[in-house]
């Protein structure tokens, strides 16, 4: 009977709209129990008195075994795995009119200690292991990552890569590079993330998964916050039509990050508020799915850790092919310089360190440049076709000598020649006395032209925080309990990357956790 009294008193407070989250969840839980689960758990719609009474759909327009939200790496991977494991009725919803989310415009770099071709070993690029990958990831995120999640990613990365190659027909380039924050040559290149998206989508569609574009989730239905209360379905909008989809086995949120959600970005990291910052992401990278999940009790973490990509096109902020080279090239000897022709950081530094070293130069310091030579292009996963296209578009500048290159990009020739000569000497000596960069044998001195320059500047790129999940990709509520039948994978989640995601860890994160979610969800009872 105590339960009923609670309902009465809390019900009143509900109307006065002065509830904190915890008491609200309890109140709604109790209300649901008494009213026979007729009401939906609901906190976020404006006008919360009515919102609390928003009824669950009386009838469902459709029933789906597994519903996946988002068609990027994580969503396609989840759909591919769920269907591979026997799920028959898997639907992927994509709110944008095109598939692939931000993944399809991602740079295609994939960290994995090994691959089926064993490129690192074949190219004599040193040692690596799952543990080293995990350690680098933890260190690169200042130990804010949840170690158990990092372990899942590092352990699953190689198998997931080989799966996309073998089952999905993904083609990777015959090299591995060493990128900022990584202590080994483990970053695989494919040119663009579309290679993996298409591979995963191919597997999913071959197994019968259905993709629906232009279909936006507007609400997640859950009766109450009881730990045994599962997610029931979602409300979706397609054109002007609203409908309700019932979920049998589970809902997998794979809706990506919120770099383009200016409000959410600024709410958690005021430094990045406003629309003045450039952003590498597609327009759909907004945080509404995080909000909807929070509204049914999901916990979030580390929402304030938002990454700037240090090498975006300074004009538009996009991460085009030339913008990938500064990230891919450090292990092969590329050099970053200021407009004055001076180095300003170790080229093997983490993305956050490189970004803030640039920002510290002040607005007058924009842009900085990456300098590389022709010999390095294939080694760091580039192609001649790409460089020719980059030159034609004016994104890459080429010259036969360093002095001439400096003139072409308008920086002092003497300074740039001196910087490159010194760097060549550091490579020969195996020591970088200026910035303490770890020197390796794979780094090529810039003695033979032609030489190239590409301009770069930070742009908002990746949101490390998001929904709290466990090692099974199950979403955890604010009390620490699993929300039954709710899963999340990829950038919508938090806790894998800590303060700073190491470049090329995003795809393994998305694909591995997508597989985990897809594999676990089919074991649920319908």
């Amino acid at each position: 009977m105590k339960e009923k009294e609670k309902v009465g008193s809390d019900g009143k407070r509900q109307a006065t709209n002065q509830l904190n989250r915890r008491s609200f969840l309890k109140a709604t839980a109790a209300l649901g129990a008494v009213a026979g689960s007729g009401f939906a758990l609901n906190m976020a719609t404006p006008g919360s008195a009515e919102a609390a009474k928003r009824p669950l759909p009386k009838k469902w327009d459709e029933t789906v075994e597994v519903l996946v939200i988002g068609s990027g790496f994580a969503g396609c991977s989840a759909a591919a795995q769920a269907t591979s494991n026997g799920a028959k009725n898997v639907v992927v919803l994509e709110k944008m009119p095109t598939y692939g989310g931000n993944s399809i415009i991602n740079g295609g770099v994939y960290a994995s200690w090994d691959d089926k071709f064993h490129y690192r070993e074949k190219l004599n690029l040193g040692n690596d292991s799952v543990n080293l990958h995990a350690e680098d990831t933890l260190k690169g995120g200042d130990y804010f990552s949840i170690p158990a999640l990092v372990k899942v990613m590092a352990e699953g990365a190689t198998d997931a890569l080989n799966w996309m190659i073998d089952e999905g027909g993904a083609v990777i380039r015959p090299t591995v590079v060493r990128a900022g924050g990584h202590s080994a040559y483990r970053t695989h290149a494919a040119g663009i993330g579309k290679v993996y998206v298409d591979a995963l989508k191919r597997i999913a569609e071959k197994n019968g998964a259905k993709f629906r574009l232009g279909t936006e989730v507007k609400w997640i239905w859950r009766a109450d916050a009881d730990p045994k209360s599962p997610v029931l379905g979602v409300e979706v909008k397609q054109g002007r039509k609203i409908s309700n989809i019932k979920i049998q086995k589970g809902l997998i949120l794979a809706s990506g990050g919120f770099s383009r959600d200016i409000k959410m970005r600024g709410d958690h990291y005021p430094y990045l508020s406003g629309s003045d910052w450039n952003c590498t992401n597609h327009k759909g990278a907004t945080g509404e799915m995080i909000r909807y999940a929070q509204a049914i009790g999901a916990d979030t973490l580390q929402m304030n850790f938002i990454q700037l990509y240090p090498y975006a096109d300074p004009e538009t902020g996009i991460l085009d092919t030339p913008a990938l080279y500064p990230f891919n090239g450090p292990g092969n000897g590329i050099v970053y310089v200021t407009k004055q022709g001076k180095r300003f950081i170790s080229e093997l530094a983490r993305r956050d360190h490189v970004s803030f070293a640039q920002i510290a130069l002040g607005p007058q310091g924009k842009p900085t440049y990456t300098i590389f030579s022709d010999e390095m292009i294939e080694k760091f996963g580039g192609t001649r076709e790409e460089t020719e296209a980059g030159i034609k578009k004016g994104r890459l500048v080429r010259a036969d000598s360093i002095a001439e290159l400096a003139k072409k990009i308008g920086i002092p020739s003497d300074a740039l020649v001196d910087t490159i000569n010194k760097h060549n000497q550091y490579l020969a000596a195996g020591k970088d006395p200026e910035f303490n960069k770890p020197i390796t044998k794979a780094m090529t001195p810039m003695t033979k032209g032609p030489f190239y320059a590409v301009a770069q500047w930070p742009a908002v790129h990746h949101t490390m925080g998001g929904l709290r999940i466990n090692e099974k990709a199950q979403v955890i509520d604010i009390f620490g309990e699993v929300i039954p039948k709710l899963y999340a994978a990829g950038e919508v989640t938090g806790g894998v990357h800590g303060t700073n995601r190491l470049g090329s860890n995003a795809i393994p994160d998305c694909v591995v956790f997508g597989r985990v979610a897809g594999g676990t969800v089919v074991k649920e009872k319908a």
Partner: protein
Amino acid sequence: MKRFRLILIFVFLLAVVAYMGFGEGLIQAAKAAGQTAAPQQSQHAGKIDCASCHGKGSPEPDSTVENPRCLECHGPMEELAKRSEPADFPDRNPHKSHLGDIACTVCHHEHSPSAVYCLDCHRNFKMKIPGGKED
């Protein structure tokens, strides 16, 4: 019983005819007012009718037009892509882009102004659709 079934079918057919007539009536009324039911805003305007894209009967609300329909006149895709290949930057071809197979209707709209989707990210591209937003 048989007669009853016949009556049912008759009533149903009557309803269908009435409904169709109603739809037609709407279109006629709109035409009288100098517009179609859903005004055309592309270069198709005045040249092709509803059925050319939507087939017979009035389209459902929010119904879209699939690529094969567009390509009956504008295709095949490979040739369309060849025609739209920019001379200066061949890889900035909206009909053969890095977004893969996408719906024509992502950019080309009939009942609202067309808009080049590429420009959402590539702000500095010079691209436009005849009769579209940027034209």
